[in-house]
């Protein structure tokens, strides 16, 4: 339990394996074509989005409008870069801040709502943000979408890959540290029992607004990064369905552990692209996966290794008891 220095000593072995993984990820583009690199960038972005959704989730708030904050980040950054000609590097940060401020503002009223009521409110918020984007065509080009958003780098996609890799690692590091700290414990406490939490002096609304602020900030930054990567964004990119997809990634990956959203995003973002000509059926396939996961492994696919272990143990025990009798 005792920590010394920036990293605890007993974590060094873990750190080494993480370092190995990071080196592999850095070398990966050398062996990938531009299509695979594009896929990798999408996966990295979805890892940020799903993980930031989970940070909000652990405070007891199941958001059905997370994509709206991604959109706020993307549009803020894109509009500032196009209309005012500011450098995308600066506007991306402002995009994240805009999403964070939006998260805090809706947090004040929304933190009074619990469970399904919060989810419903966030769902309508998501719909509302899409509609708002469409209402100001002078600024946002409405449903046509914003085109020719300034790029961060020139044509080859590798720099984007490294940019998103760094962004993802930094995000995951920060979210992990927050979750495994006093702040994270406060968020989880509020989710488990708001009565108990307030009896020991934890403000429920403060904790929940904080979770929204953190989650929305990273969602906004990732959205802004996406805008400057794809150079084209439209309101539908941030509508209801993307929000629901994020939720599906989170549920399938597993809400209970930090790795859940990471695994969920990797597996589910890649599946449609591996279906080749059957890509049109991807939503049905995703729905099927979600239902199977909910029934068979409610803790998500991240719990599969432990699950299989216990299945094998049970099988083994059964065989042993049979041979004894």
């Amino acid at each position: 339990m005792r920590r010394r220095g920036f990293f605890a000593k007993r974590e060094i072995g873990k750190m080494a394996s993480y370092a190995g993984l990071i080196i592999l990820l850095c070398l990966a583009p050398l062996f990938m074509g531009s299509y695979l690199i594009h896929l990798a960038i999408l996966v990295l972005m979805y890892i940020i989005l799903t993980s930031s959704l989970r940070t909000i989730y652990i405070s007891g708030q199941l958001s059905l409008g997370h994509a709206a904050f991604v959109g706020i980040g993307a549009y803020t950054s894109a509009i500032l870069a196009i209309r005012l000609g500011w450098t995308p590097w600066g506007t991306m940060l402002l995009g994240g801040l805009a999403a964070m401020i939006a998260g805090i503002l809706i947090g004040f009223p929304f933190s009074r709502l619990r469970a399904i009521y919060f989810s419903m409110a966030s769902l309508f918020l998501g719909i509302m943000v899409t509609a708002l984007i469409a209402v100001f065509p002078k600024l946002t080009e409405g449903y046509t979408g914003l085109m020719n958003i300034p790029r961060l780098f020139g044509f080859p996609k590798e720099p984007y890959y490294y940019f998103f890799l760094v962004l993802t690692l930094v995000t995951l590091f920060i979210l992990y540290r927050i979750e495994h700290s006093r702040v994270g414990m406060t968020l989880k406490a509020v989710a488990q029992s708001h009565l108990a939490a307030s009896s020991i002096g934890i403000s429920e609304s403060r904790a929940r607004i904080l979770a929204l602020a953190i989650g929305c900030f990273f969602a906004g930054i990732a959205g802004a990064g996406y805008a400057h990567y794809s150079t084209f964004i439209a309101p539908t990119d941030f509508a209801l369905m993307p929000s629901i997809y994020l939720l599906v990634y989170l549920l399938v990956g597993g809400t209970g552990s930090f790795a859940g959203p990471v695994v969920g995003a990797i597996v589910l973002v890649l599946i449609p692209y591996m279906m080749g000509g059957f890509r049109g059926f991807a939503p049905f396939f995703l729905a099927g996966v979600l239902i199977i996961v909910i029934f068979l492994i409610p803790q998500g696919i991240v719990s599969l290794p432990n699950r299989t272990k216990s299945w094998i143990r049970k099988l083994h025990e059964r065989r042993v008891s049979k041979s004894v009798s």
Partner: protein
Amino acid sequence: MSGEFLKVFLETNGLTKYFGGLAAVYQVDMSVNKGEIVGLIGPNGAGKTTIINLISGFLRSSRGSIIFDGENITGKKPHLIAKIGIGRTFQIVPLFNEFTTLQNVVASFYLSADSSLWGSIFRTSTYRKREEYILNQAEETLQLLGLDKVRDELAKNLPHGYQKMLGLARASAVKPKLLLLDEPIAGMNPDEINLALKAIDQVRSQGVTILLVEHNMMVMSICDRVIAINYGQKIAEGSPEEVKKNEDVIRAYFGGEYAT
């Protein structure tokens, strides 16, 4: 208590709470002195828990005021009242189920710690020192209340008696000046009751003032003073012996025919 300077610590004036047309608590004036352990007794539905909920801010009073340590705390939010120094336990303990026993208590200590994001992310030395201090304090609290055996057990897997004790541990970890205990021994077996009474005594010996609610008359023995209420109104007040003999109290508990 004679000879000691009695300082009124908690005071309610005309405290009233309506649920719809029903007065669950009506015009209750009561006071708790510093260092005292006061019992609030009464039959089921008398309004005892409502009073606890009003004092701790979980309910807003319809009328009347609550003064704590010279400060008017009427209508304050529960987490702010906890910060002022009023801890509480619950009749049915709402625990952090997915936390271990230790984590439940550690969470309580966070009230006294800064929860800076910066410190959490970069694990600054102040953060780590604070963390170590909290951990030690939590372990100490567990030991004091005999919960160290179940330190790493998930709260939801604890037996009922332990859950109640954990509720007490968590409330005392807030370092309250006044502790409100809502039926601290309800549903416990005799062994657990002994343990709980000892634990309450422990907490009290650290100078914590206690107001406890029970409808079990046994607990009265550890009280300095007892206040009896029925139908939301105060019907008697005094030493445990006095209240036990009080006609109104006997009538409230056993019905009119037993009062002589």
